[in-house]
């Protein structure tokens, strides 16, 4: 310990001033940083209702939810069969098809590739559907299967399933 009692006092004052200054600066930064997060009106655009009554088996539609495309596909028997018979060991991001759908013919996915955010092809009849008959991302070559699971390419995860529920047999609410 130093001989001069004032020196200790000075150290304490200096340290507490710096600490208080740092905390104050950090506190003032918060509102600035927070202002960059999504605003209230952006958050309010949270849900979309879709009429799915007119979709035939084997058809898909794309709707917009939170600015992103959502794929709604009425799957054929073969596609469901294909999705359910895959070995778990063949999957990069293992998930059961039954956990990814509420009704087995209705597959609902966020149409954003989990690699770098492009929209995969496969919605139109004329689109290439990739090697696993689901979707194919043209940006960096990721292949998804008939359950929207990643099978080949750089994407790390399956296509997301958005939160949704059936309001009745022909209407769903996404979000």
């Amino acid at each position: 310990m130093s001989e001069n009692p004032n020196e200790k006092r000075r150290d304490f004052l200096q340290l507490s001033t710096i600490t208080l200054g740092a905390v104050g600066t950090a506190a003032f930064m918060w509102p600035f940083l927070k202002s960059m997060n999504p605003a209230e009106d952006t958050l309010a655009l949270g849900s979309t209702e879709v009429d799915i009554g007119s979709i035939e088996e084997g058809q898909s539609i794309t709707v917009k939810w939170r600015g992103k495309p959502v794929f709604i596909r009425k799957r054929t028997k073969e596609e469901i069969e294909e999705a359910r018979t895959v070995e778990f060991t063949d999957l990069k991001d293992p998930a059961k098809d039954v956990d990814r759908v509420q009704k087995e013919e209705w597959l609902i996915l966020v149409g954003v590739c989990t690699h770098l955010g492009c929209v995969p092809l496969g919605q139109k009849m004329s689109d290439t559907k990739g090697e696993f008959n689901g979707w194919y991302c043209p940006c960096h070559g990721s292949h998804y299967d008939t359950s929207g699971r990643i099978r080949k390419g750089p994407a790390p995860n399956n296509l997301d399933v958005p939160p949704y529920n059936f309001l009745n047999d022909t209407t769903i609410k996404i979000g």
Partner: protein
Amino acid sequence: MNHSSEPKKYKNPILNWIEFRLPIISYFEKEYGEYPMPKNCNYFWSFGALASILLIVMIISGIFIAMNYTPHTDMAFDSVERIMRDVNYGWLLRYIHSNGAAFFFIIVYIHMIRGMYYGSYKYPRELNWILGVFIYLLMMATSFLGYTLPWGQMSYWGATVITNLFSVIPFVGEGLKTWLLGDYTVGNATLNRFFALHYVLPFVILGIVGLHVAAVHVHGSNNPDGIDIKSKKDTVSFFPYMLLKDTLAVCVLGVLISAVIFFGPNIMAEVDNYIPADPLVTPAHIVPNWYLAPFYAILRAIPDKLGGVALMFASILVLFVLPWLDRSDVRSCNYRPLYKWFMILFFVNFFVLGYVGLKPAEGLYLLIARLGLVYYFGFFFIISPFIHLIEKTKELPASISDVYLGMTK
């Protein structure tokens, strides 16, 4: 009031008045008048001046475009078209700005190649090199932000892909991405902030350029022989010799950039960016601007999301430590018979990476990208640190004036 005790250094009393209160006159006299330049410097030493002038051109043309641009997702694309068709000379301002950006990168790449080839990054100019890499990083960020503003298909999807790079960071990635975008996807909030940042970053660059120039003036410029200035015989003063030389270089640049602006303003543009942004349709082939393509090639060469992103950032950050990776005492590659060829191969490799970065990531292109990636990092982590163990460097000349006498004989 002019007190009689004030020093009378100059004939002009106004200069004396200013000098006594703010010694800026003598500063400019020293740094841009008498400043000693090695007399063996070649035209590669003009590219710093060219880059500074282009920065000013970019800032001025940008300010005037901003007066007619609207940063809103519904209006941005149309406001750019209005600049092109209705605003007086708007087409000229925009073509100066878009091609100026490409030329800015060409100039800076040549400036960096010069620094690497002649070893300008070595003692005692390491900090100068680091400031330069900061400028380069800020340039990449600024050009990316600017590319988003016309709100065409390439703008939108380029912004989507690049901001998604941040989502690979474990745990905080998704939150960070949403924070950067201000929305769940690239949207109006994103466009607004990108415009704000695109406007302010060039002034940050200008500030760092000031430090970069001040730092090089402390120990003086390097030269093609990479040896220190030993006497006054080794140098010429900046004014008028270097000023005239740089002026000629500026004239040549002016001719080249005008040729592109007036006769091929879209040769470096992507046609897809003349289609308005559509969040539901991704273009078949997303490409970055050519000057960022080498890093895009590295990103796509790795079949793993986190790995690709990590290597891409590493390929830029490794530049910061180059002064410590290269262990040789000899600066200039003119005296390093082995390293010289690895260095030239590095430059070639960089532009090959850029070429494959603009092509689809498959087949032969992917293979070339992977080989290029291996050489890129091999150059920094194997060749640069260890080549001095086997390389026999040529004997350095005793002084710059000796070289100069040898040249005129």
